[in-house]
């Protein structure tokens, strides 16, 4: 079977497992085609339903694949301002602050946590080929987000934009490491960002790119992980 076609099936499969499954009778164990479902660890899904998040991982011909489910959102807005308050925004990219990055209970935070649980690697451990990410709609956006942070391939289907979210999270991590490496522990990350005028402007300009290669994280490359 064509590789991308099979990824589309895995992207669909995340809608059919776990809580709120679209299809009855499918367990969170077993196989789909040649892909074997990775067993969940105890309470690994804690907080998922609260956040409207779900993901599932597979082993497929020696490759680890993570499929993120997309949340539903209603088309109830008729102005840009209303769109900013839509469930789309609230469900997906809310929870990011300069001081703490993405909240661990947000969809983005949970997407990172699941990636790290499955691969046993930090999302900032670049280019390790630890997993391929996939998903549809919001799930595709989460796949691109995690893929961009971790330099792993992602295959999204009608996916949401994710580039700025990935840059924002990379910004937070870079600043956190800089604060630690420079021994500025008495400052918070937020205070450091506030104190630097203009430096982060280029990082957080809005972009329409959906290029998975959001590799322009110079701050992150140049600062080693704190010991």
């Amino acid at each position, binding site marked *: 079977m064509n590789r991308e076609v099979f990824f589309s099936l895995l992207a669909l499969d995340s*809608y059919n497992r776990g809580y*709120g499954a679209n299809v009855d009778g499918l367990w969170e164990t077993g196989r789909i085609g040649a892909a074997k479902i990775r067993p969940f*660890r105890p309470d690994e899904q804690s907080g998922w339903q609260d956040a409207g998040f779900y993901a599932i991982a597979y082993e497929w011909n020696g490759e680890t694949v993570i499929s993120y489910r997309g949340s539903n959102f209603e088309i*109830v807005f008729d102005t840009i301002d209303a769109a900013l308050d839509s469930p789309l925004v609230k469900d997906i990219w809310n929870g990011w602050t300069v001081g703490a990055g993405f909240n661990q209970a947000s969809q983005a935070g949970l997407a990172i946590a699941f990636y790290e649980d499955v691969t046993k690697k930090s999302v900032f451990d670049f280019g390790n080929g630890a997993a391929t990410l996939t998903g549809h709609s919001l799930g595709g956006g989460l796949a691109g987000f995690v893929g961009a942070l971790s330099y792993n391939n992602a295959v999204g289907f009608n996916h949401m934009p994710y580039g700025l979210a990935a840059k924002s999270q990379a910004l937070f991590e870079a600043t956190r490491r800089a604060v630690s490496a420079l021994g500025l522990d008495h400052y918070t990350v937020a205070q450091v960002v506030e104190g630097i005028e203009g430096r982060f402007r280029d990082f957080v300009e*809005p*972009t*329409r790119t959906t290029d998975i290669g959001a590799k322009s994280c110079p701050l992150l490359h140049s600062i080693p992980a704190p010991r």
Partner: protein
Amino acid sequence: MSLSNLRLKRRSFVASAALTFGAALALSGCGGADDTPTYRYRLTLEVDTPEGLKTGSSVIEVETDVAGDYAIATPGRVSHELRGEAVTVDLGDGRVLFALLRSNSDSDWASRVMFMLAPAYAGEGAFQNRFDAMLRKRAEMALPRYFPRAGHLDARSAYPMLVTFGDLSDPTSVEQVDPDDLAATFGEGVRLERITVQMTDDPVTTGIEERLGWLGKIREMNLEREDFPSDIPVGDFSGMFKKETIR
């Protein structure tokens, strides 16, 4: 750059993101807020024992949302949120039977059981008619052993998953209980009499964490899948006993 400017840039990003859904934006005002009512029901277990009938019950609250015709990604999708906890039945001698918020095959059992017991309708408005019929039924109902076969699905257990623990302080001592043979777990003379459900306005039951101190702390215990019996789903282990997705 101040934090407020960073937030403004983020709103600009979001505006850009919203514009990429241009076709969807054209369908303005076609969704609408969902007003499907929230309801509560009491789940009760009755167990015959040599010492007499033992019972336990729990009030569970269900919020149902029906996605609009133009929702993305799945129009018309029915989703649920739940607030409540598993039923506990004290059988004496420290033995406790738990009826979970899921069945063997359905992790959303507690969100759907009342709807599944309502008469099915056909045609336009079938879901709403069935939902309304469910709300109107206030009498106590005994659960059938199985839901009828439907489409590709064989007859599925209509009962919640039943479990007990060898040691209530040790989540890995969980053991599934056969509803058709409680005696195999609890000894001769112990038998499930029936399981009932009934719509109610009583407050949602709370307090199970006083009995199960590890609820919500499983991840801190660094337990692995292999520490639990293979027939017990563990991905949302604590969630089988208590849910608070409705705030």
